Structures are given as structure tokens and as C-alpha cells.
């Protein structure tokens, strides 16, 4: 992240709040999205991440606070004048328009003549590799193809920030992994800010330069993907991001990574409750006498040297140096 300097193109949220009647969907958010970074807003459903995105996009009114893009408060501008573009969860392609006309829609609204707007749409379709299907209707495309068209349509407005609302959730797992690689590649080529809302931690880890974990209307933790994963600040983040065990110590709660837990001789006694073979590793879940559930991620070879099965007593060990203290 060090290479990215703060510039005028940053997107900044200042005391951003959203209320629906008495319920607070987003509470006093303050955050700076650096120019050209890929940011994932991560959190469970109802945590306020979608409301935040929709406020940035201008599809939801701001109750309090400001959204500053490129040095200008855009909170009360209509969506098209903010310099943002949104890609919708179900893509929201116009079913009665061809792929090319979908991409050219915003240019048509500006009154640009047909020849020019089609030429520009063709450029964008080439960018997302959809030139050959330009005359089709959206209903004749697969999910992945529809997504590319939606991307092209959002990018045709030359936004400073592209907002993606759970863009991969409608795809099957295989396609999802392929499309996320394409999203990342595209973002790197274009160099614009991508803000991507997701509830999948693997998606966030794979894509994001910066992860913003939200829970219960506030930001729990924000930082580079590696930092959020290795040093979760709160128990919620540790549990949500996965791959961690939360253990209670006399000084407070701490986490230990699942791959730092081993089965040894003199550790914490526990009973195996589940064994899951995952290929390169084996996930062993064990319950301690205190009732804590601990996950140990063991390398495959190591596990099969002395395999365990549910019901067996084991002893869980970890290096105290690998404990990470939680702040909350």
C-alpha cells in the first residue's frame, strides 16, 4: 500500500450515517479509499456494507455526513454526476436492448449520435472480450457474459470509482473464480478504484488491496488483506475471516491460526469431533474439556502418519509465540 499516495482522486467517507426510521444501517463511518486500489467491503448480510455502497453510488440518500470524491462533496449529486458507476448484483441489463445498446445507453442519454456511441461501445466490448456477441440480447447470454456486459456498461462513463454490489454471487463457483481473476486484471489495467461488496472472505482475500470488515453498521477493521487476516483486531473479524481459533487466556482473548495448531504429546486435552480431508491438508475439529471448539489444519502427510477419527482423544499444542492478542 505504501506505493499508493493520497491524491485528489481519493474517495473519502466523513461521518457517514444512514438511518431507516429508528434503525441505524450505517453508523458514523470514516474511511479513505485510496485512488486506484481494489477495496472489498466485507461483512455478513445486514452489516451495512450494501447501504454504504449504495450511498456512495447515490442510490440511497445520506442521512448524515459527507462523501468526498476528488476533493468535492458529492453526497447530494445525482448518481451520474458523481464520477462513480455501479455494477448491480443481478447486472440489471436492459432486456429490450442489444448488448451494444446496453453499453451505449449512458452515451445515448447524453445525446451522443449513434455512430459515435456505437464506436465507443465497441471499444468497451473489446476490452471485456464481448465483441462477437454485440448484437445479442441479454437473455441470450450466460451469467459470465452478462457480467462482462454490465462491466462494459459501467465503465463506458469513465468513472473514477467503480462500485460493485456482490458482483460474483450470481455465478457458479467455477465461473466465480475465473471472473474474479478478470476483475482484478481489469482493475489493474484501468487503474481506477474498485469498491467491491461481498460476504465471501475468500473472495475478499483473493481480490482486495484493502479489506474493510463491517459488522453491525460500523467498520470493525480496515487494512491490507494480509494484515486483516494475520492480525484480526476483534473476535468478530477473527471468526468471520476464517482460519482462526479464538482462545480465552487469563489476560484476555487471543487467536491462534488453525495451521499453527498441531497434535502433540503434552498440550490441551481434547476430543476429535470431525475430520475433513481437504486435499493438501486435513481439517481436524476437536472440543476441549472447557467446551471450546478448536480447528487444526494439518498437512496431509503429517496427519496420515498417525490418523485420527472422531471420538479419539488428542492433545492440542501450539507455540505461544503464534498467539495473537485480540483487542475486543
Amino acid at each position, binding site marked *: 500500500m505504501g506505493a499508493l499516495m493520497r491524491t485528489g482522486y481519493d474517495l473519502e467517507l466523513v461521518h457517514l450515517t444512514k438511518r431507516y426510521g429508528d434503525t441505524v444501517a450505517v453508523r458514523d463511518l470514516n474511511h479513505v479509499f485510496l485512488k486506484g486500489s481494489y477495496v472489498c467491503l466485507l461483512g455478513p448480510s445486514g452489516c451495512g456494507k450494501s447501504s454504504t455502497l449504495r450511498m456512495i*453510488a447515490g*442510490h440511497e440518500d445520506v442521512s448524515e455526513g459527507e462523501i468526498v470524491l476528488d476533493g468535492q462533496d458529492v453526497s447530494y449529486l445525482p*448518481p451520474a454526476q458523481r464520477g462513480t458507476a455501479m455494477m*448491480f*448484483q443481478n447486472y440489471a441489463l436492459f432486456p429490450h436492448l442489444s448488448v451494444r445498446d446496453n453499453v451505449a445507453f449512458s452515451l445515448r442519454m*447524453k445525446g451522443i449520435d449513434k455512430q459515435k456511441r456505437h464506436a465507443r461501445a465497441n471499444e468497451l466490448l473489446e476490452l471485456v472480450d464481448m465483441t462477437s456477441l454485440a448484437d445479442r440480447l441479454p437473455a441470450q447470454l450466460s451469467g459470465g457474459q452478462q457480467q462482462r456486459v454490465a462491466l462494459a456498461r459501467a465503465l463506458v462513463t469513465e468513472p473514477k470509482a467503480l462500485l460493485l454490489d456482490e458482483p460474483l454471487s450470481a455465478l457458479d463457483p467455477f465461473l466465480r473464480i475465473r471472473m474474479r481473476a478478470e476483475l482484478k486484471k481489469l482493475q489493474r489495467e484501468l487503474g481506477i478504484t474498485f469498491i467491491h461488496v461481498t460476504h465471501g472472505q475468500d473472495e475478499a482475500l483473493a481480490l482486495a488491496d484493502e479489506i474493510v470488515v463491517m459488522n453491525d453498521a460500523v467498520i470493525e477493521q480496515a487494512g491490507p488483506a494480509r494484515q486483516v487476516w494475520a492480525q484480526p483486531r476483534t473476535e468478530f473479524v477473527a471468526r468471520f475471516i476464517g482460519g482462526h481459533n479464538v482462545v480465552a487466556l487469563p489476560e484476555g482473548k487471543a487467536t491462534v491460526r488453525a495451521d499453527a495448531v498441531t497434535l502433540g504429546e503434552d498440550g490441551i486435552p481434547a476430543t476429535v469431533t470431525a475430520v475433513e480431508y481437504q486435499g493438501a491438508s486435513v481439517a481436524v475439529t476437536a472440543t476441549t474439556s472447557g467446551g471450546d471448539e478448536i480447528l487444526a489444519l494439518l498437512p496431509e502427510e503429517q496427519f496420515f502418519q498417525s490418523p485420527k477419527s472422531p471420538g479419539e482423544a488428542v492433545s492440542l499444542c501450539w507455540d505461544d509465540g503464534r498467539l495473537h492478542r485480540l483487542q475486543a
Partner: protein
Amino acid sequence: MQLKNRHILGWLEAAPLAMVLLGFLIAPIVMIVIVSFWGATEFSIYPAFEFDNYEFLFGSPVTYRVFGATFKYAFITWALTLAIGFTVAYFLAFHVRSLTMQIALFLVCTIPFWTSNIIRMISWIPFLGRNGIANQTLISWGVIDEPLEWLLYSDFAVILAFVHLYTLFMVVPIFNTMMRIDKSLLEAARDNGASGFQTLVHVIIPLTKPGIMIGTIFVVTLVMGDFITVRFMSGSQRANVGRLISNDIGLLQYPSAAATAVVLLCTVLIVIAILLRFVNIRKEL
């Protein structure tokens, strides 16, 4: 063997509907077509196969005038019901946010249907009459000095009644189609810089076309087949094809009435065929 059984089963399943359609749709139409070729004198009708009825129909200038009037009623009523129906449906579908409110307001639209067509029509008469509520109010406000003559027993009254009776047939299919429009499409349009009016023209109207077409078919067929509204609201001073047929029946001239009915049926079918060329309504059904 099994294949044959399936075959029979399929026919059996289709039979009840086929019988109903055969008995109550096909047979009466065939009967009307047959009778339209019969002959008639002042006091009798006799089976025959002659073209006299059609010759008389197509030879008379009255026919063309009356068909013209029917088309005029259908067109004006269509235009007005479309304008009102689209507006009402748009309001219900896009401005009323809560589903409960949408259903409640929709039911309010249907209240006039709780009473009969004739009653709804006749209730206009004391309102529009020479000394009716409308004229008296306008005079008391000083807008006019003398009662307006064209309010009742005129084309105005006929079309007013048509619009009143049939607007709901436009509202329902349009509302239905609008409710199926994904709301995120409207957001996408806004995101792409479309103004409210541009969204209406470039997104909502194109996607509502099938509903508009179904409503159009309802209204056009209802107005073209009507005779009672025209009779009551024009005080028997105006004519449409329905009244032509009804008059023939009143004079026991069944063959002539049947011939007019056949021509009207063909006209309506042609109109619908033309409409269907413009919009594919299959996905709505």
C-alpha cells in the same frame, strides 16, 4: 402399447376444454356464418346460400358510415384509456412503495365493478342532463349562461361512458407488466445518467409494451362489440356496428344481423392481427 396409452391419455386430458370450446365458441360462430347466407322476407327467413345479405351490406353507404363511427369510438376510447390507464398503473407500480398500499389502491380501482355496467352508465344521465348536476354547477359558478347541450346524448357522453367503463381493462395488464420490471433497471438507468423522462421513454415504455397491447386488445374488442352504451348515452341518436346488429335482430332480420356480425368479427380479428405484428405478447401469457 404404453406409447398408445399415453396417446389416448393426452387426448382425454385435452377433451374437456376442447368440448367446451367446440360447443360454446366454434359451433355458435359456424351457426352465425351459415345463417348469414340465408335469405329473408318481411315475415320469414329461409335456409339458402346466397350473397344478398353481404351485397346489401357492402352496397349501402350506411354500413361504411357506421363502421367509421365504430372505429372512431374505438380509437378515441383507446387513446384516452391508454393515457389514463398508463398513468394510474405507473403511479401504483412505481410511486406507491408499500405492497399493502398497492393492493389497497388497486382494489379501490375495482370498486366500480361491484355494480352492473348499465347502472354505471345510467348514473351519468342525471349528472350530464340538460338540468343535471354538471350544468347547474357550471351555471351557478357563472362559467356558462345556458346549459351545455352536448354533455348528454352525444359522442361526448358515449366516449365518457366508454372510458369510465373500460379504463380498468387498461390498468390491470399494464400494472401487471410494470410490476414485473426489475426495480434495479430503473436504478441502472439513473446510474447511466437518464432523467426521469428518459427512463420512462427508454426503459419503462418499451418494457410495458406487452401490457399496453393486451389492454389495447381488451378495450378495442369491447368498444367495437358494444351496442348498449352507444344506445343509452347517445339517446339512440348515434350508431355503431353493434346497434346495426341489434336493430336487425329487433326486426327479426337474423340473416342480415348474422352477416353484419361476420363482417364485424373479421374486422376485429384483422385489427388484432395487425396489433400482434407490433408486439410479442406471448411471454406475458
